[in-house]
């Protein structure tokens, strides 16, 4: 554990730490372009040079490739260093097109920031003599490249080589003709291509989807997690609703990965990155719907709940609780499932209840982030007891088969779009054989047309909620903006049902519900909403996994 002095302040840092990270411990930012903690060090940008004094010898060194050592005296703000930075910045800006007004990165650009901080020089390069390179190159389906803005830091090149191992990008040419381009015949089309936009310290690589949509300073940022698969990557939601009346469809502007060393590090897959479009999709269910009455009558939530309650009561009176089936979803949060369990399992004694089905959609799986299981809360659902019922009730596929065969009077389906998952024949049979189908969903689909009554559900960005990923890590989404239209939280619906059946849920928020789970369910016993924090917490009894260091192929050693 070396002791060293940075800008006159002594600090003890872990071994093998470079000076940029060491300075970060003291909240000192050393400017840099090419260095990224998730990638190998190449030391090409020369921006991070600092004065290092060791053993009485003073020298200039690049902070990214200098390991902290005992007795080091590092100066990050001396006049020599400032002069160096200014000169290097001037080199970087020599051929820069200065098109900040139309650059999407303006506002979060390191060139801008460092110029304001360290540069502030007047350009000595006449405008018309600037070198022109390729502009608006579509390097991949999600990424657009502007070579003129590029500072050749090679972060994106290293990302494609080290993290995804696909090698789509390279730097070609020499000297002032050096240019970032696709490898011949390749497109930047790997599953993580959006990450190169996050990595790019300037505006050279921009997200096609976000291009020209909003200036970055308009957006607000909320921490959340991605609910696209059972990984639960940590993300930031960048959103803006102030101009909703001009652009009513899109509230989330983009998603950015949020660092979590145990889950996703700095990365995020393209599917998750662009998955927000479902939240603001025009297909969203925004009002309750009834297909029984038809003719454009829009019922209120209370009307639908009253009718469903009557159906359930009638079914129980006639054939007992075994005439009711609930097809719950592992995409619901703990709070939803907890309220559902309290209502159906504990009060109504319904045993035909499950959340795991073989027909559910499967995704791509790889070693980096993507998981085949596309539900964010499978493990949480199992821990809460929404599991195959075995002997007493029916599990999974058996439950569905029984429903298709007409064993139940009332079928309640949560979130599953059965119309796209089951065959037409099975669906028709299910419809014909079931007395009453209640569907709780987020989007208009075939099944919403088929069900008797439909209640709209809020999506992840519109609500607070907690989910347990496949590792056993409990993480939470945060309320970003209000649900679209009259959409409701799922637990809110179960609470309203509960009131009709004499179960009074005293909890009136997600926080209370989660705290109740913590009190009553063994696996969650150590957890409260506040203890989840920004990065989540492990389930009771599950050990913390080691820090990840995603690296799939050979580092770009000599570049």
């Amino acid at each position, binding site marked *: 554990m070396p002791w060293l002095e940075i800008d006159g302040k002594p600090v003890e840092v872990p071994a093998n730490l470079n000076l940029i990270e060491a300075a970060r411990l003291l909240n000192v930012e050393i400017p840099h372009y090419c260095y990224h903690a998730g990638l190998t060090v190449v030391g090409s940008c020369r921006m991070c040079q600092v004065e290092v004094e060791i053993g009485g010898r003073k020298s200039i060194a690049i902070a990214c490739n200098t390991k902290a050592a005992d007795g080091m005296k590092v100066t990050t703000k001396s006049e020599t260093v400032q002069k160096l930075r200014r000169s290097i910045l001037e080199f970087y800006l020599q051929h820069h097109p200065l*098109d900040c*007004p*139309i650059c999407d990165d*303006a506002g979060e650009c390191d060139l801008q920031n460092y110029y304001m901080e360290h540069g502030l020089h007047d350009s000595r390069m006449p405008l018309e003599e600037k070198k022109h390179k390729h502009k*608006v190159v579509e390097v991949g389906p999600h990424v657009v490249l502007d070579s003129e803005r590029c500072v050749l830091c090679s972060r994106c090149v290293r990302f494609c080589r080290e993290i995804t191992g696909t090698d789509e990008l390279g730097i070609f040419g020499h000297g002032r003709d050096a240019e970032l381009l696709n490898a011949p015949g390749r497109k930047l089309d790997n599953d993580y291509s959006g990450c190169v936009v996050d990595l790019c310290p300037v505006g050279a690589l921009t997200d096609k989807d976000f291009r*020209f949509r909003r*200036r970055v*300073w*308009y957006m607000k940022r909320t921490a959340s997690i991605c609910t696209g698969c059972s990984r639960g990557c940590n993300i930031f939601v960048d959103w803006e609703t102030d101009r909703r009346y*001009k652009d009513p469809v899109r509230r989330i502007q983009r998603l950015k990965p949020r660092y979590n060393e145990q889950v996703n590090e700095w990365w995020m897959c393209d599917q998750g990155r662009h998955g927000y479009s479902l939240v603001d999709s025009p297909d969203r269910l925004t009002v309750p719907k009834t297909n029984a009455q038809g003719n454009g009558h829009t019922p209120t939530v209370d009307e639908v709940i009253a009718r469903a309650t009557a159906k359930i009561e009638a079914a129980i009176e006639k054939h007992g609780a075994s005439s009711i089936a609930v097809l719950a979803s592992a995409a619901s949060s703990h709070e939803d499932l907890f309220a559902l369990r309290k209502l159906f399992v504990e009060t109504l004694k319904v045993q035909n209840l499950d959340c795991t089905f073989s027909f559910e959609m499967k995704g791509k799986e790889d070693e980096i982030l993507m998981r085949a299981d596309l539900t964010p809360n499978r493990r949480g659902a199992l821990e809460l007891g929404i599991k195959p019922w075995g002997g007493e009730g029916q599990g999974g596929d058996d439950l569905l088969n029984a429903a298709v065969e007409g064993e139940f009077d009332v079928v309640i389906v949560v979130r599953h779009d059965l119309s796209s998952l089951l065959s037409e024949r099975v669906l028709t049979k299910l419809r014909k054989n079931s007395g009453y189908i209640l569907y709780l969903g987020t989007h208009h689909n075939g099944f919403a047309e088929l069900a008797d009554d439909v209640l709209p559900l809020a999506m992840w960005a519109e609500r607070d909620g907690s989910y347990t990923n496949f590792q056993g890590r409990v993480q939470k989404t945060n309320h970003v903006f209000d649900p679209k239209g009259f959409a409701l939280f799922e637990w809110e619906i179960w609470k309203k049902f509960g009131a009709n059946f004499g179960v009074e849920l005293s909890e009136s928020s997600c926080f209370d519900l989660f705290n109740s789970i913590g009190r009553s369910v063994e696996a969650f016993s150590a957890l409260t909403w506040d203890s989840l924090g920004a990065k989540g917490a492990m389930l009771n009894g599950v050990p913390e996994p080691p820090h990840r260091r995603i690296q799939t192929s050979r580092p770009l050693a000599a570049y």
Partner: protein
Amino acid sequence: MITVKVLKTVELSAWQKTYYPELWKGMVVTSRHFFVNLARFAGRAVGMKTKRPIVTIQYPEERRPISPRWRARHRLMQRPDGSPRCVACMMCETACPDKCIYITAGESLDGRIEKYPVAFEIDLLRCCFCGLCVEACPEDAIRMDTGYVEFGGYSRGEYYMDREFLLKDLGMEDKGRTTHAQYRGELDGVVVTRVDLLAQAKHH
């Protein structure tokens, strides 16, 4: 703290209390104005060069020159080919304290100018005419020098200026606007320009 102010009633003198002398004084003042103005009007009517009797400016037909620095209705500047000079950088929208500018940026495909305003709208009803948008513009694409100061309308929609409306306004450069020289001339004596209302109505 309470401060007491004692108000004293003005005591009228015996002369004033008879009332008629004071009435007479007032009458003299108003009558003097009446006759002086009448004489000036009459003199003008018969073609004599009398002083302008009344300083009222008959507004729609006559108008005082507006200072060239006056912040009037906005306009968007054009490139030589007629496309907007604006690159949709949203600097004006960001600077606007009233949030009355709405720009929707688009990507142009001709490869010369990447970003351009698909829609550029100003809600004049929200605008406070501070001129910050003009200050903020890096391209000199928005100006407030049209000389338009008349904002009458029958519906709110008329105050919502879209891109095409803001762009087409180049003709006003010599009509409503005053140059600095003209304006300085105006400072020496009242110069009133007569405006051809009919021609202006056609212009709209």
